[in-house]
């Protein structure tokens, strides 16, 4: 893995990559939906936020997560603040999990991630249907949760490689 510790500008960009990716993914709705695969959808920001909050990554500011949520709401067309709340609740649950964990275990993290995204998607679905009268398909949420859970391991492997090249 390349080490950017001693390289000025590139090092800074490299250290901010998770945040940059988060903003790109919310602005671009990077969820592989354009592949048009039946029943396939993925929530990449959830994986990104969960992992880097769990690792307490230094540049991963909650305020930026909050802004990313607002952008996501604007792009997708959801009521403003919904995604911010979801992302911040992920941050909170992850932060709580980090505080109570003495010996981290990837499998435990993975299943805790399933619990977190299930809870967040449930809250999201409930708010949108109950308070904003949106018509949503529950099955799409379930499938989205399932694939996000499955792809977590894949992205975590990449993120771990990334972390090796940072100062963290």
């Amino acid at each position, binding site marked *: 893995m390349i080490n950017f510790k001693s390289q000025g500008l590139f090092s800074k960009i490299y250290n901010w990559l998770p945040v940059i990716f988060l*903003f*790109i993914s919310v*602005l*671009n*709705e*990077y*969820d592989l*939906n*354009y592949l*048009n695969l039946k029943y396939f*959808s993925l929530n990449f920001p959830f994986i990104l936020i969960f992992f880097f909050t769990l690792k*307490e990554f*230094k*540049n*991963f*500011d*909650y*305020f930026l*997560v*909050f802004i990313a*949520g*607002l*952008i996501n709401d*604007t*792009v*997708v*067309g*959801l*009521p*403003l*603040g*919904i995604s*911010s*709340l979801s992302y*911040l*609740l992920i*941050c*909170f*649950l992850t*932060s*709580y999990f*980090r*505080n*109570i964990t003495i010996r981290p275990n990837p499998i435990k993290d993975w299943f805790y991630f399933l619990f977190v995204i299930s809870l967040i998607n449930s809250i999201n679905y409930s*708010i949108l249907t109950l*308070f*904003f009268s*949106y*018509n*949503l*398909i529950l099955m*799409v*949420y379930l499938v*989205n949760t399932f694939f996000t859970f499955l792809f977590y391991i894949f992205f975590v492997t990449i993120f771990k490689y990334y972390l090796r090249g940072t100062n963290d």
Partner: protein
Amino acid sequence: MAASRDDFVIAIRSAFLKKSTQQKFSLLTLVIASIFIILLSSLNFKIITYLKVGINEVVYRSSFLVSIPENFINNTFSEVKDYSTFYSNYKKDKKELNLLRSKDISNEITQFENKELKELINDYVSTSDKLLAKIIVDHQSTFLRSIIINKGTKDNLKIGTNIYDQSYLIGRVIEVNYKTSRVLLLSDLNSNVPVTIVPQNIQAIISGSGKKHGKIKYIKDGVYDSLTEKSIVYTSGTGAIFKSGVPIGKLVIDENESTLKFNVEFYSDFSQLKYVFAEVLQKTETKNLSKSTIEGNDSFNNTLEAKLKILEDKTKIFEETNLKFKEENENLESRNNDLNTEIINLKDQISSLKQTINQFNLDQDELEFLKLNLKYGHKCRKSFLNNKGFLVETPEYKNCVLNKGIKIND
């Protein structure tokens, strides 16, 4: 037990309130801010609306810029795909074009008639102006089907403006900013469109399915049997949300073992949209329009007067011809009566002549009998010498005389 509860509280407090060196705000502050924003966005405050419009403008443009690489890859892929099927598509299109050209003329006439009829029904004339708009954001989200176009209030777009792909309806504007707008596609779950299904002429409401097709949400019970595959679905204009008579798609019947579903296959492929048309409608009251034109235009009055004169002349001619026809009719009726009486007289004459003829025939027979009676009466009459004879005035005697004395019994 108490210690574990303390640990739990400490962990939560730490997660919520603790700010590490890089964090500018605690999680609790930001969560409260999010909830506050949700509440504010659900209330329609003017300041919030302006703020939202500002955020939308910036975010949509940023999203468009960020999407450029992905869109480039997607477009390149679809272009390569298009080139591979270019020749076959060209042939197909050529055939279709010829067919459409012939249909176009009759279509124009129908449109003109339709416009005139609508003017009669409504008390306003709608003049439409279709604006070409570019799609700047189309992310095909998992949950909501919407696109962002580069036209907004600056171009007179309003909430509810109908959006077309060619002449096919694809959705309506649900959010307007100064230079951008969000269009809710017909494939979205929250989209409901009142439609007419032809040739059956059935009214229904279709909604999106969250996928590529639409589905029939409401339809009158008992009309399912009459629906056929490939029936055309177009807007009925009920509720005045969508313009009437705009084609949407074709009906597809999805028949499983247990269920029967009616889907609508949209004419337009929503995933391949690049440019769309926004129809800006301007309604003008016809009553006011006619008043102002009459007041300001004398030539219009002249033409009306001329038309009236022509109509009066026509009426006069009709009245004259009508009188002539009446006279002729009366003459014919009297002549008819005369002829009828003549017929009756002639019939009487015929019957009297018939009677005379009959009388004459009877007299003739009587004369013949008398003649024969003189000759052969003695042979037929019963007497002392002629036991085999008959009594006079009996039919047997008459027969015998007419047979010249030959007795039938012999």
